[in-house]
């Protein structure tokens, strides 16, 4: 419950965001593989949820029944979650540096069986929102007031199951479920609008009966304000379309490589050094 009691101020959150970014870069460079750019776009959202007072959890008791749940449906961005959980005290920063190594529970995609505190094993895209519906329904039956937050990728929105879930969540008026779409604009082979253009997420999701907001998801103030607004809506599911940039925080460093997508690859040790220096 620590997080809610000790919600960080915007200024403190911004500092924490830098800490998360450093960890993301360090762990993926150390691993020699992974998805730093997809992790970096979601930092402000994950940061606000874990440290801005929007989720109740207890790092010392990860199975606490009334905890809020965080599902990273875009499981490849798991370094941002490992970074946040390390900062929240679930495990040490040193532990996280074993990312993707044989024997480490810090797998390339989240594995709830091996790592307490992970709420869903994801990695096959499209399933997180449905898992969130199940957890939200379970919380309702258990009458424990738990909220569920699901972070989905914009490329992931191409999965039909997400749209099944959008309809299903509305049917049960899940006011304890919040979906955040990390719209960083890129997926594996290129820009999301070129690969499979789904048009306006806000219009489509609103048409399913959800409460919707579209924000600059790399602006910490906007993210906090949007989560604040969403927390007051309790009669239907809520979506935040979080427009972000893949690799946000170290964009000039990545852009200098000539690859504006930078999908699914770590920074070289030299590039990581530049990025860490850039972050300050």
């Amino acid at each position, binding site marked *: 419950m620590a997080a809610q009691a000790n919600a960080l101020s915007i200024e403190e959150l911004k500092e924490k965001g830098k800490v998360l970014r450093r960890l993301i870069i360090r762990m993926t460079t150390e691993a020699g593989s992974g998805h730093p750019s997809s992790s970096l776009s979601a930092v402000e959202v994950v940061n606000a949820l874990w440290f801005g007072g929007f989720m109740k959890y207890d790092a010392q008791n990860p199975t606490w*029944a009334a905890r809020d*749940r965080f599902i990273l449906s875009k499981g490849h961005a798991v370094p941002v979650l490992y970074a946040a959980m390390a900062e929240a005290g679930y495990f040490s920063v040193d532990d996280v540096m074993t990312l993707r190594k044989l024997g480490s529970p810090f797998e390339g995609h989240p*594995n*709830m*069986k091996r790592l307490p505190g992970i*709420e*869903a*094993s*994801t*990695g*096959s895209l*499209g*399933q997180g929102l*449905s*898992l*969130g*519906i*199940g*957890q*939200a*329904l*379970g*919380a309702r*039956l*258990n009458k424990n007031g*738990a909220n569920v937050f699901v972070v989905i990728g914009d490329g992931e929105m191409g999965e*039909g*199951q997400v749209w*099944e*879930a959008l*309809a*299903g969540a509305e*049917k*049960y008026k899940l006011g304890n479920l919040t979906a955040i779409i990390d719209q960083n604009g890129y997926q594996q082979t290129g820009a999301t609008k070129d690969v499979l253009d789904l048009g306006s997420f806000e219009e489509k999701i609103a048409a399913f009966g959800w409460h919707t907001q579209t924000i600059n998801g790399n602006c910490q103030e906007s993210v906090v304000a949007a989560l604040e607004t969403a927390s007051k809506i309790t009669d239907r599911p809520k979506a935040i379309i979080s427009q972000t940039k893949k690799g946000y925080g170290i964009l000039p460093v990545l852009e200098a490589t000539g690859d504006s997508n930078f999908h699914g690859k770590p920074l070289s040790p030299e590039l990581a050094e530049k990025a860490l220096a850039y972050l300050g």
Partner: protein
Amino acid sequence: MYLGEMSGLKIGQATRDAFGDALKELGEKYPEIVTVDGDVGNSTRTEVFAKAFPERAFNMGIAESNMVSVAGGLASTGKIPVVASFAAFLLCNAYDQIRMSIAFPGMNVKLVGTHAGISIGEDGPSQMGIEDVSLACSLPGMVVIVTADAVSTKAATAAMIEYEGPVYLRLGRPNVAEIYTTEDTFEIGKANTVREGDDVTIIANGLMVAGALDAATKLAEEGISARVIDMHTVKPIDVDAIQKAARETSAIVVAEEHMSHGGLGSAVSMVVSQANPVPMAYVNVGDCFAESGDPQGLLDKYGLTAAAIIEAVKKVK
């Protein structure tokens, strides 16, 4: 003529009906049971539970992928979700969701595939789950159960609820012969020898257990003593019962209402080939899809009969 008639068995409830009744009874005892449906609850019989416990029943609509993952989420809050649909839609449509939302995290979800096999009849091959056992067995850690009659289905339903972990229970549409009485026991992973015999062993599950008993009755008239084993749990399979059969009888015939690959036949042969190998023969749908037709006509045409089992026995005996 129906499977079981030659051995004097009476036709009882369909396994899906027995499941529906059992689930409602278990719902009283286990408040954590919930159902998650894909809008076929009146076919799978989860509607019996849903009427008794409406607040614990979730119909997610014709959206099997969502349905299965929702169940995974519910399980992670301590619920015991029972997900029921036609075997073909549950296993084939939502396979990745079963893999990632249930099997991989080891969720305590009970998957129930009804309308399995070709005995559903007129609706035809699109509705016939003939590969579901193979698919379910291919998921690490998944328990796979195929029941033969109403009594054992009720017992299996209770056993799967009491078991902690993912289970697939395969059920059929038609009324089937009564093999067991309530005196008989059911234990996951422990086969039931429903007829003793020394010359040959017929290992079957589902409605083919009745067919195997018919075959054994007929074979006895010809002086061939056939043991019949109901291998209701395909995974984890009862290795001891199979090895004992291989040691004590000279051949094994496997009969199942499934296509030729990856089902009970494959599971049994993997055991037999490792110790005391004996000649084996297989009775199943084959490597093909079936067609529309009346159930009995389909069983006859696709060789799921006592006669087919007898023929197989004579091939290896």
